[in-house]
């Protein structure tokens, strides 16, 4: 590797790590992705400038240049993958971003696996010490499993696939994994009849296919609500796969960036799971969501419904309002209207704050992103811990399309599947207004006694339409 290439890779790696660091604080987050982007550009330039590896003494190909047609082919491949990704990435609705993260993530895992596959098929991986084929095989395994799993995550979040639970799946997955591991071991040795009686190129092929199926099957039974944790897990795995394959082709930028993502992603997975009051082990191996028919206890009362105009009047003449938004706000794309309404209330001298439950919406942080998009300033947005004590003093708690995160059963009802989850204490406000599309239950399938509370009034309808009507009435008051 030439000095210039080394320097480019070095700068690229520093930028990628600093970018990630900056992305972990709200103030510098936006510049973070730009720094990381600059690092990526430098790394690609370095790769183009010097496309053969710094394999050192192990490389059978050191010093071989790349032909122009091959460089052209690389550029075509970049365009084939990059152009559609750019287009979909720019066009997709904010609410659909989680599944896009899942699919782009999975493709990265598949890409890491292809490096290992090329190294194994071509025989490069076998020309050095045993560590090389072992690590190449490991990278293929981790990358391909994560690819298969991320694909399922994408399909589920997109709503194209439900939760599938096959009887005896644990035993089946275990057997499948054992078979895949055997094929993986067979792929490590390039002896001519092959360790398990088939040519090594066959065992590699079956190994890749099997790894994909394992990832696919392992993710099938996991419910949609747990997908963020699952995707974050795969994100960390793919970081690891990238680092492993980076070792195989002796690329320090890949080793470092991949490892950093592997470590940061693992920690992030645990943080996310904790914010949702789940454990990572639980998400992966339990059957949460099976109890859809959870008992509807004590729901003899009826819901009280209210017209948007009346709800607007209540808010206009109160002093302190706390808004608890949820997925319904995201679905209705009502965040801009909501901010418009809040500004009108503020002009009337009403104190308005937003209470964000960590897992309101479909992904942790989903609501903050949405409100920020509408232009709501940070100082109006409060975390669960910051604001939960203030509900008792609030005149009105306005719940918009949120359900499980405001369900008091999580505090009191031990039999409830959501028992123990921290919730927003909206029920402690003097009055609760709930904007809700229909009378159904939340994502977890649990009925919400809050809606039947004598203190609660329901405003039924699509959040966007309801808030628009509220704005009209506020103008007239």
């Amino acid at each position, binding site marked *: 590797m030439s000095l210039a290439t080394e320097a480019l890779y070095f700068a690229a790696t520093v930028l990628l790590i600093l970018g990630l660091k900056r992305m972990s604080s709200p103030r510098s987050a*936006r510049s973070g992705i730009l720094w990381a982007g600059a690092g990526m550009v430098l790394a690609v330039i370095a790769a183009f400038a010097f496309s053969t590896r710094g394999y050192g003494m192990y490389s059978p190909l050191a010093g071989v240049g790349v032909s122009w047609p091959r460089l052209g082919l*690389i550029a075509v491949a970049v365009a084939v993958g990059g152009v559609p990704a750019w287009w979909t990435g720019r066009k997709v609705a904010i609410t659909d971003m989680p599944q896009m993260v899942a699919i782009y993530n999975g493709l990265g895992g598949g890409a890491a696996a292809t490096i290992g596959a090329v190294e194994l098929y071509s025989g490069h991986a076998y020309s050095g010490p045993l560590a090389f084929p072992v690590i190449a095989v490991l990278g293929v395994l981790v990358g391909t499993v994560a690819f298969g799993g991320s694909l399922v995550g994408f399909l589920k979040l997109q709503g194209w696939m439900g939760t599938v639970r096959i009887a005896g799946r644990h035993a089946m997955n275990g057997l499948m994994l054992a078979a895949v591991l055997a094929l993986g071991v067979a792929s490590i040795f390039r002896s001519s009849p092959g360790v398990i009686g088939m040519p090594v190129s066959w065992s590699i092929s079956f190994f890749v296919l099997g790894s994909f199926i394992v990832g696919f099957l392992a993710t099938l039974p996991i419910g949609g609500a747990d997908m963020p944790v699952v995707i974050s897990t795969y994100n960390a795995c793919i970081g690891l796969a990238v680092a492993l394959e980076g070792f195989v082709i002796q690329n320090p930028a890949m080793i470092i960036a991949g490892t950093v993502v592997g470590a940061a992603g693992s*920690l992030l997975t645990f943080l996310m799971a904790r914010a949702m009051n789940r454990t990572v082990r639980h998400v992966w191996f339990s059957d949460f969501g099976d109890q859809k028919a959870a008992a509807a206890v004590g729901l003899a009362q009826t819901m009280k419904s209210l017209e948007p105009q009346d709800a607007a009047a209540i808010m206009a003449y109160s002093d302190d309002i706390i808004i608890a938004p949820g997925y319904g706000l995201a679905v209705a794309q009502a965040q801009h209207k909501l901010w418009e309404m809040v500004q009108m209330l503020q002009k009337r001298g009403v104190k308005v704050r937003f209470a964000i439950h960590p897992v309101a919406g479909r992904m942790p942080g989903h609501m903050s992103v949405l409100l920020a998009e509408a232009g709501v300033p940070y100082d109006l947005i409060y975390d669960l811990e910051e604001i939960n004590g203030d509900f008792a003093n609030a005149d009105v708690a306005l719940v918009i399309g949120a359900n499980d995160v405001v369900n008091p059963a999580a505090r009191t009802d031990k039999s409830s599947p959501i028992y123990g989850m921290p919730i927003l204490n909206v029920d402690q406000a003097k009055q609760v207004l709930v904007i809700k599309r229909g009378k159904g239950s939340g994502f977890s399938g649990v009925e919400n006694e809050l809606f039947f509370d004598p203190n609660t009034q329901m405003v039924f309808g699509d959040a966007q339409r309801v808030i628009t009507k509220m704005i009209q009435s506020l103008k007239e008051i």
Partner: protein
Amino acid sequence: MNGFIALYIFMTAAFAGYEIITRVPVILHTPLMSGSNFVHGIVLVGTMIALAEARGPLEVSIGFVGVAMAASNVVGGFAVTERMLEMFKSKKNE
């Protein structure tokens, strides 16, 4: 690269990754996941090298698919992350 040097790099980078995000607010969980997804897009570099050195139709085909997948990871990851984080711009914090 000596095997042990690689191990040292691996260990140091793992600690770095862990330290980087120990104190991250919940509102940044999703953008950060997307951002780290973009960072492992560095795999693009490796797929380009693999395709550059591939010989024969099988290797070239796999290499081509690899570069295309990695390019989707990089480009899509950037587009989505940038859009999420754009919402945090020019807003005062704390």
